[in-house]
């Protein structure tokens, strides 16, 4: 698997991890604000679930750009390792949760034998990441102590967040990035160029 990746693919996954490390920090703040807003209405724990998808976005962006087996899993793991290197206060357990989330995202692409990177597969990948990551957090964060209706609500919201933030937003950001031309050396960039040429021959 690693043999089929070029060095620049790996460094790309790593810099994605670094950049999103910064963005995640920002989202921690957003999460806190959401929790504070929702608490008086009795929906505090849902605050983080609303934006949970952001934590899977690296998988989807990297897989959509590089389009090779194992990229979704590795990108999320590398992102987690990079965050630990940068001094994330979540520590090495973050690597473990990164692996779990990455595995979840990878499943969607594996089911299409890594051939299909259409929007619905990307959205599905966000959902599968959410689906797999929830039991892990259920265990580690002691969701067991919550009332069941709350757990179900959290689960559904996490799935939606995975679909919208990781899947849809991830695709949108990667598309915009491809338009700048910096991804021309990757499958996504080649697709953009091909589409562009096609549309210009039509005129």
């Amino acid at each position, binding site marked *: 698997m690693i043999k089929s990746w070029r060095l620049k693919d*790996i460094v790309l996954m790593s810099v994605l991890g670094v950049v999103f490390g910064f963005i995640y920090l920002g989202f921690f703040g957003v999460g806190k604000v959401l929790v504070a807003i929702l608490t008086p209405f009795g929906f505090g724990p849902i605050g983080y679930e609303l934006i949970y998808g952001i934590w899977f976005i690296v998988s989807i962006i990297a897989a959509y750009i590089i389009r090779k087996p194992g990229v979704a899993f590795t990108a999320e793991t590398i992102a987690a390792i990079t965050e630990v290197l940068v001094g994330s206060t979540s520590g090495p357990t973050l690597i473990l949760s990164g692996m779990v989330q990455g595995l979840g995202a990878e499943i969607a692409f594996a089911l299409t034998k890594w051939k299909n990177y259409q929007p619905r597969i990307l959205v599905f990948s966000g959902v599968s990441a959410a689906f797999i990551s929830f039991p892990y957090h259920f265990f580690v964060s002691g969701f067991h102590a919550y009332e069941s209706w709350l757990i179900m609500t959290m689960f559904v919201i996490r799935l939606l967040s995975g679909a919208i933030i990781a899947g849809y937003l991830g695709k949108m950001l990667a598309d915009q990035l491809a338009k700048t031309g910096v991804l021309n050396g990757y499958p996504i960039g080649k697709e953009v160029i091909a589409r562009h040429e096609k549309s210009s021959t039509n005129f």
Partner: protein
Amino acid sequence: MIHSLNPTMKAITVILPAILLSFSFDIITPAIMFIYILILTFFFSKLNIKKWLFYFIPMSFFALGLAWMTMLYTDDKYATGPIVFSFFSFDIRMGSIIVSMSLALRSLCFIGLSLLFAFTTDPTKFMLSLMQQVRLSPKLTYGILAGYRFVPTFKHELDLLKKAHRIRGLGRAKGWRNRVEHMRQYFIPLLAGAIRKAERVAIAMESKGFTGSKDRTYYTVMKIKATDYLFIIIMLIILIIAYYVSYRLGTLNIFGHRIMP
């Protein structure tokens, strides 16, 4: 000293109790672990206490916030015992208070262990150790390190982006759509630059004869010493003691099941 431990072994020693602690829903078990973690932090590592508090205090507020949430939404399995107080429409029972304090202490253990690792580990050595001890492929190891090296550059770029946006008259974002748009405006230039750099550094590394092959010598040799095993064993022993003490005291609670001696 914790600084000189092998980073991979240290990571395992930190992850293990974090997982094994997840079974307990009582106060005594995480409390004993937390005391041990504090002892490690203050007496066996040379970290700057001020800096440690700077990170620990805000994060522990977060842990307390979560505990408060748990208290309000405790499942019937745990919400036992007499009602201690009422808050709006919520009746808080003794059982809810115990389980929320347990979860809060568990978070504090996570935070303590994570900070212990983060403050006593050299990132480069951690990666080298993953390569030498866990056989992580050199291609991944050095690829990750190459990305990590850009951290100070990105901090600088982020600062410049903020300034440049101000000059363009881009005010504070209001509303969801604008926030997303705002994120895009940071994300695109930051990542466009990062991707170009990633490509350049990969080329530069390969032009220095790097092929990603495992057949290479090491300048910094990372070893696992007896103290590394000792560290992990003591950690596990303390964990067992913690569970045992709680068991003897009759407080042990595994996933809602009280386990009495």
